[in-house]
């Protein structure tokens, strides 16, 4: 009697396994189907245009197209790298990107953490909403606001300085001020926007963790460091890796509107150089040179992203690939 039951149970279990295996395969199929729209976008709009990298190795004419334009190998890269100015440009680009990252990355995290501590719901929501607004001001408008703020003749800053007896500072024409101004403007424009990601992550934190910490006697600061911060650690790491990918692509519109010949020594970056050389003249636009410099930057960025990704694998379980 018992043996029969045992046999049928094991038979049932075997059947269950097979059924579950078949079910798994079917499930994968469903996953693939769900992925189809995403795959289409990936292939059509992200992978397909990659053929354009060929332009960097050609003497490209839009009329002849990629297939009929003359191939020149690495000549465009040579033109760019053999320019003695190239080193200054790379240095400026890296410095600008570096300082922007140093400030614009942590500030949204800190802002999110401290905003989370505010008790009054009204103030919390109000500040968070308003902090988001600068993102909507287009670069052109934001820069013109900045310019009028620091104007030696009419700007608020210089008026204040004057009251304190200090001579007006020509912010926009002093090379040393370019990077600070650029960073401040960038941070101002994006910190509220970027903080949203962290705020959303914070709302997902299990509140029982806070209760447990309370019972252990942890104060506000300890809770922030030992509960909130670690819980959004993965998001922070992911955002960091992603930011590395765009590190070298400084906002060209911002630089273009902020720079002038007085500060080329610090303000001229790769993209503005390409813009001046390839597009801003009456000559035939040099798409090939632009593509070459762009490719150069992309390779650099890719190495950075890859390295950061590998490093982050060691410290957290979140890595992108």
């Amino acid at each position: 009697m018992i043996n029969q039951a045992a046999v049928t149970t094991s038979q049932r279990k075997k059947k269950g396994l097979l059924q579950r295996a078949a079910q798994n395969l079917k499930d994968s199929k469903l996953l693939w189907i769900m992925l189809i729209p995403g795959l289409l976008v990936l292939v059509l709009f992200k992978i397909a245009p990659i053929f354009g990298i060929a332009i960097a190795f050609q003497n490209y004419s839009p009329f002849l197209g990629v297939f009929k334009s003359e191939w020149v190998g690495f000549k465009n890269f040579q033109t760019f790298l053999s320019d003695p100015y190239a080193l200054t440009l790379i240095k400026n680009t890296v410095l600008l990107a570096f300082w922007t990252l140093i400030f614009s990355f942590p500030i949204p995290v800190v802002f999110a953490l401290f905003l989370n501590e505010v008790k009054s719901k009204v103030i919390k929501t109000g500040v968070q909403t308003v902090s988001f607004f600068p993102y909507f001001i287009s670069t052109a408008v934001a820069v013109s606001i900045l310019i009028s703020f620091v104007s030696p003749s009419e700007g608020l800053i210089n008026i204040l300085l004057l009251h304190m007896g200090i001579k007006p500072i020509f912010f926009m024409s002093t090379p040393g001020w370019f990077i600070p101004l650029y960073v401040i403007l960038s941070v101002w424009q994006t910190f509220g926007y970027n903080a949203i990601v962290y705020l959303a992550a914070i709302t997902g934190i299990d509140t029982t963790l806070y209760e447990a910490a309370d019972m252990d006697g942890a104060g506000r600061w300890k809770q922030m460091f030992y509960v909130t911060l670690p819980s959004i650690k993965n998001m922070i790491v992911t955002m960091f890796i992603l930011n590395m990918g765009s590190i070298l692509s400084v906002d060209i519109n911002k630089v273009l509107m902020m720079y002038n010949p007085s500060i080329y020594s610090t303000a001229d970056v790769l993209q503005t150089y390409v813009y001046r050389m390839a597009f801003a003249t009456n000559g035939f636009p040099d798409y090939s040179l632009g593509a070459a410099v762009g490719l150069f930057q992309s390779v650099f960025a890719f190495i950075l992203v890859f390295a950061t990704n590998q490093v982050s694998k060691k410290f957290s379980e979140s890595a992108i690939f």
Partner: protein
Amino acid sequence: MFGKKKIKAAALVLSLTMVASAMAGCSSSTPSSSGSTSGSADGAKLSFTYNLEGKYLNWMKDLAIWPEMQKQSNTDITLVNGGDDDDHYYQNIDLKVSSGGLGDAAIARLSQVQVYGAQGAFQDLAPLIDKYAPNIKKYIDSNPEYKSMVTDKDGHIYGITAEYPLITNVTFYREDMFKAAGITSNPTTIADFTKTLETLKTKFGSTQGYYPFTGRDSYLHFAECFGADDYIDDSGKVHGIYDYGIGNGTGYDVHAAGFKDMLTWYNQLYTKGLIDPEWVAGTQTEETWQTKMLTGKGTVGDDFPTRPTWFMNNGGPSNDKNYSIKVMNFFKDTKGNDIKRWNYDATIRTDRYLVIPAASKNAEAVLKFEDFLFSDKGLQLMHYGIEGTTTEKQSDGTYKWLKDFGAEAVKPLGTTNYGMYQDRLTFPFPVDNAAYYDSLDTLTKSYASDYFTKYAKAAKPIVYSADQQKQRSQLLAKYQTEFTAEVLGFVNGKTAINDANWAKFLADMDSDGYTAIHKIDQDAYDAMQK
């Protein structure tokens, strides 16, 4: 919550919306050039599409003469917006040139005309002009400079270009501030001018942020007075980096003795606080400059000829009821001779070429229309507008202007505009300077004709080959950066103007591209003379 049924329904609605909009979008796409050809038989209207920048398209639609232009030439022209911004418009030409999306006629840059014309993207207009456009042919043959700008060395014509009126910057000043400072006569030389500025500084210098001489963009004006400008002398030798004399910060002959004198003068102005340091530093925007001129933080300017009117109409008198602007004569050179000054912009433009893409079947219509514009009747319309509405021809041959340009210029978009705008892009046609000067507003008109007749001169054009253009652009980008930086150092006093520094400066300029660019300019000019 999001049940399968709901998702399915949403997807259905979404796809229907998308299909509907896609259909709507497709049907209003840019008209292709291989559309119906227009009949050339008399009586039947000629029609074609014209691709140009959005700004000029919108302005043209409001022109009172626009319907007339079509009516009198028996054409029906469809305007197509090719882009809303200078840079992006020309970029769109690059994007569309291979797909036939440019229609029957389009505006392009000279460099695009040269490169794409040679590659076969644009039709060779030379045989078509011979056949359909006798007026254009006559104009080209009797104007060697225009001919050299449209004909390549093999005799092909891949585009015809628009002209621009001969105007220059004018030196204007706050007449009331001059009176208040006790200045009774206008300066006639650079030395006089310095004294005038000093007098102004003494009187008004206590106002925070006041500088007598202010402006925008490049500050290196009056190069002609020092002999430091770029020009081609009678023997055919090119002086300086050639920029058609425009002198908006790109030309100049650094090797001329006068260039050193010019920088010495600007350094003097800077040290004495006579010139706006923001302007010199390059951080002045149009807005900050306008505010300064309107609120009395500046007295003298040297800028576009309609600027005095602008300041009078846009708040000057409301800030100061004595506000009044006048124009002073151009200064003599350092030797005391009367001289002229260079044009504000090239009189034969390099960025407004009309081309006919290869795929167009309406080349005849386009050229017949253009020929009308080059004919006497067409020129009458383009220079003096509609007889009886815009102007009225008098018995002695002069014209009476019936509309107030000042009022027309500020009309809102979408209303018929009776102003004449030979400086704005419409279509290529020969410009009439006298008519242009007369068509301006009252204040500008009062000095325009005299000032320009006395002082304006147009620089000879140089045409570069596509390769030369490419090399030159790359060299110029670098040269200009170094030039501006080093000149700035001399002007604001960071670098002393002594022999040693000057020699180093010249050596730097030569190696940064001056020698190379100068050679290209000379070679290109010599090639044109053959």
